[in-house]
């Protein structure tokens, strides 16, 4: 029977909310704020840490198969071209070459640098190299504007010949109230245009897979993917076989950050077709240049913001007009530059600009780091115009009850008042402090299932097709199951990333943990109940009389440890499942967070050094505080890297990327990594039996904004463009005030 439960959700000692929720009859009992937990909420080392540290963890890239063949695409490195001629005969005749297939024939059009034109398969990597170099393709190169500015020109070549490159977003403008009238009445207003760059995901393991044909038209596929389910379905379609005939395995995954969502890619398909044709396993994985060019990126942006406020700092109106490119597709302008603060009058307009470049893909908090950089820059500029403290302006306009707590917490940790009142100093190295908000929306969902098997010898396995992409999903499942069974997390074997096990969520949108954690808990509770029933039979009591406390089952004077209970199981053990139930009502639909950055800027060289970051974040209940801190720290580091270093640079005439390597496309290194102080405001979100929410994305949302505001504070000049390179710092200093 569904039952109603009265509960208090939120932060103990902070903002809370009283609720009555109707709990699903089969769901695990909800953990509320008062729940006393043994391992949940503590530092638990990652369960696959020892294997990873020993180099024993096998990634898709590491899988060795007998008779493995290799596949790669010959690519066109021009932004816009028409294929004139394709010569593959010489390549086909080379020793070790197993197959050559033309993907774009004469007359075919290429609209981004990196497009695959010919697919090649060979029995060794060396033979593949030779074959790729032996393929001759000639092109008629056409003008192909690759930058957002060039592509907007009316005379520019069109990506889609039927329409201009700049197209208003199909969803239309977002409008609230009367922003023009409100701005006219405002006590103060500022207007600024912010620009951000294209960032590539640069996961260390590149995209790709191995496809191995088996008996009866079945296939085993090892894939570096963020969604085993989507990969399985799209691979089955490409091979023309039922979904059940394809097994996808992603045991360990070397980073994705959004670029490995959404099923197979061109190269995966070609590998699969060669595998089917040759009857042997075929591996296709991108090299670093390909990864930069064809496997996704974060769109750039030009964001014109006008923001107005009353004399007391209350926001009155926000107008945000954004341009952006997602490459030769149709999106790109979706910068989240109007969320977070309460504004009664709003206009948000977006124009997507098609360019002759590889397509953008979801990238850790799509639209948010760029949007928050602009919004928070505008907030600081407005505070300056109003002559009030930037933090006070935020506190006045931030409607999220938890972020109100977090702003104060973070300000105290960074020493906001001290740093603001000390000012940037007068030497050649100036000091600044800035802040920005995080926001995210993920409560998890779906109807995913986790299976838990308990054996006579006390071994416990939790299984789901969900992949652990480095976020610690495997460990979260181990902790939740261990909590319910009264054992150590290390005793739980978690089998992840195999589509033979119950389907799990894709790892995108920070949905993984809150989607798959609750059913793991439910399954573990089922397993505990199953053991109690076995004990009840053994002891001749009712199952309901068997209690479980402190890691032991008891009924009257009788007691049994977990292992003793397991020993009573039959040879088949106990196999139970838990299902993700629909979300309940909860504390707040948005996760909250904020970050503060302290920087030093050398005004002679223009070099920015981030000294310290304080990151305060919420993700509902934190299951493992150690791996959660890793997530936060990682988000901050990616954010600093985006703020200061990363930029896809294109040859303006040819449209090819001129920095497609890891030495020329710079990411933040260990020597430049600041001290990062991570504060987790763990609370009961109420939305599911464990109170969990998502963490991966919000933690990288505010960083660039906070760093840029700190640099602006240090310089006394507003930074409006990323990345904040030394050249831009020096240029900003030369701008007339």
């Amino acid at each position, binding site marked *: 029977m569904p039952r109603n439960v009265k509960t208090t959700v939120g932060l103990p000692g902070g903002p809370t909310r009283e609720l009555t929720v109707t709990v699903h009859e089969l769901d695990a009992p909800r953990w509320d704020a008062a729940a006393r937990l043994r391992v949940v909420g503590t530092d638990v*080392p*990652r369960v*696959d*840490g*020892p*294997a*990873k*540290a*020993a*180099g*024993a*963890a*096998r*990634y898709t*890239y*590491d899988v*060795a198969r007998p008779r493995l063949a290799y596949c790669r695409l010959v690519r066109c490195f021009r932004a816009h071209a028409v294929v004139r001629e394709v010569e593959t005969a010489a390549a086909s005749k080379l020793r070790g070459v197993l197959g050559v297939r033309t993907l774009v024939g004469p007359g075919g059009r290429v609209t981004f640098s990196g497009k695959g034109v010919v697919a090649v398969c060979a029995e060794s*990597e*060396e033979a593949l190299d030779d074959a790729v170099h032996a393929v001759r393709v000639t092109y008629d190169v056409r003008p192909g504007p690759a930058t957002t500015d060039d592509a907007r020109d009316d005379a520019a070549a069109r990506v889609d010949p039927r329409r201009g490159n700049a197209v208003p977003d199909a969803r239309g403008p977002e409008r609230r109230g009367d922003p023009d009238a409100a701005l006219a009445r405002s006590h103060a207003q500022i207007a600024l245009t912010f620009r951000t760059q294209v960032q590539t995901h*640069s*996961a*260390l*393991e590149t995209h790709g897979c191995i496809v191995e044909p088996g008996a009866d038209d079945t296939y085993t596929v090892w894939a570096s993917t963020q969604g085993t389910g989507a990969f399985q379905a799209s691979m089955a379609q490409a091979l023309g076989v039922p979904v059940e005939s394809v097994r996808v395995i992603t045991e*360990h*995954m*070397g*980073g994705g*950050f959004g670029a490995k969502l959404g099923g197979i890619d061109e190269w995966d398909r070609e590998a699969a077709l060669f595998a089917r044709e040759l009857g042997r396993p075929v591996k296709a994985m991108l*090299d*670093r240049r390909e990864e930069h060019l064809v496997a996704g990126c974060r769109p750039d942006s030009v964001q014109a913001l006008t923001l107005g406020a009353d004399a007391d700092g209350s926001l009155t109106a926000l107008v945000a007009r954004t341009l952006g490119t997602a490459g030769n597709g149709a999106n790109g302008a979706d910068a989240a530059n109007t969320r977070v603060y309460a504004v009664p009058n709003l206009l948000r307009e977006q124009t997507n600009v098609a360019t002759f470049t590889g397509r953008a893909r979801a990238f850790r908090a799509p639209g948010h780091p760029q949007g928050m950089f602009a919004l928070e820059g505008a907030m600081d500029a407005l505070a300056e115009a109003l002559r009030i403290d930037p933090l006070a302006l935020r506190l006045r306009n931030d409607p999220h009850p938890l972020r109100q707590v977090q702003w104060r917490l973070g300000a105290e940790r960074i020493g906001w008042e001290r740093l603001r009142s000390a000012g940037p100093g007068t030497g050649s190295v100036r000091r600044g402090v800035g802040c920005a908000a995080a926001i995210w929306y993920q409560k998890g969902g779906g109807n995913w299932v986790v299976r838990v098997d308990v054996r006579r010898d006390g071994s416990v396995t939790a299984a789901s097709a969900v992949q652990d*992409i*480095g*976020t*610690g999903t495997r460990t979260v499942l181990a902790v939740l199951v261990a909590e319910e069974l009264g054992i150590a997390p290390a005793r739980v074997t978690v089998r992840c990333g195999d589509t033979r096990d119950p389907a799990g969520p894709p790892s995108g949108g920070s949905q993984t943990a809150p989607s798959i954690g609750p059913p793991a808990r439910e399954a573990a509770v089922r397993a505990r109940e199953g053991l109690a029933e076995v004990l009840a039979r053994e002891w001749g009591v009712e199952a309901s009389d068997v209690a479980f406390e402190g890691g032991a089952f008891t009924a009257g004077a009788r007691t049994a440890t977990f292992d003793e209970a397991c020993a009573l199981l039959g040879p088949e053990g106990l196999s139970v499942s838990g299902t993700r139930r629909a979300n309940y009502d909860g504390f707040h639909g948005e996760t909250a967070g904020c970050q503060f950055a302290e920087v030093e800027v050398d005004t002679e060289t223009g070099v920015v050094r981030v000294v310290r970051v304080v990151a305060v974040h919420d993700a509902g209940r934190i299951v493992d505080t*150690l*791996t959660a*801190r*890793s*997530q936060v*720290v*990682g*988000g*901050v*580091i*990616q954010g600093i890297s985006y703020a200061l270093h990363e930029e896809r640079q294109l040859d303006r005439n040819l449209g090819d990327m001129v920095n497609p*390597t*890891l*030495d020329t496309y710079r*990411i*933040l*290194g*260990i*020597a430049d*990594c600041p*001290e*990062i102080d991570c504060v987790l405001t763990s609370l009961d979100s109420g939305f599911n039996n464990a109170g969990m929410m998502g963490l991966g994305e919000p933690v990288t949302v505010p960083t660039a904004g906070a760093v840029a505001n700190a640099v602006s504070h240090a310089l006394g000049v507003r930074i409006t463009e990323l990345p904040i390179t030394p050249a831009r710092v020096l240029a900003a200093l030369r701008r007339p005030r």
Partner: protein
Amino acid sequence: MSGRERGERRGVTRRGLLKGAGAAAAAGVIARPAAALAQHADDGVEIAGPGPVHLVLRVNGAAREVEVEPRRTLLDALRGDLDLTGAKRVCDRGTCGACTIWLDGAPAYACSVLAIEAVGSEITTIEGLGTPAAPHPMQAAFARRDALQCGFCTPGFVMACAWAAETHGAALDDATLRRSVCGNLCRCGTYPHVVQAALEGAREMTAARDSGAGDGAKGGR
């Protein structure tokens, strides 16, 4: 230690090897180029390749035989021929450190060394340092401190940190460590935990060496 010093010490230079098996024979290491593909230049110098050649590599204390083309990198030979897949190919140009191994006790990027160049050297890979069940103190510290997320850069970082710890011993501090391993890149953002783990692992290695209990002094300079 520079690659040049290493090359001189084992009496094999890259140029000598590319030129022919003469230098290699002098080092007494290369066995026999696969006969069918061995070529002889006019000057009588025996040239290895372009077909596969037979090499004996000393990996993690054992002699391992491979049959590889001279152009094959040590990284590809370790991974593809010897199934030692801990070292990763990420940047493929000596920028990221994910393929860090030790050649004669000093870190090297296996992506930038030919397999044939490594003949005669002691090669240590992450697998030679320890195992999940019996980890090296640095590996244990990485796992304990969560100095990894996706883990793809981790073997390279462990090799670089363990070398820094052996080299600097008790003198290893935050700044020295960061400088020692700044040739390694991580995309998940594990650096602060890497620093914590490396300093902790280094202390344990020093303690083990001082008590004479461990093999942490291996190759110590």
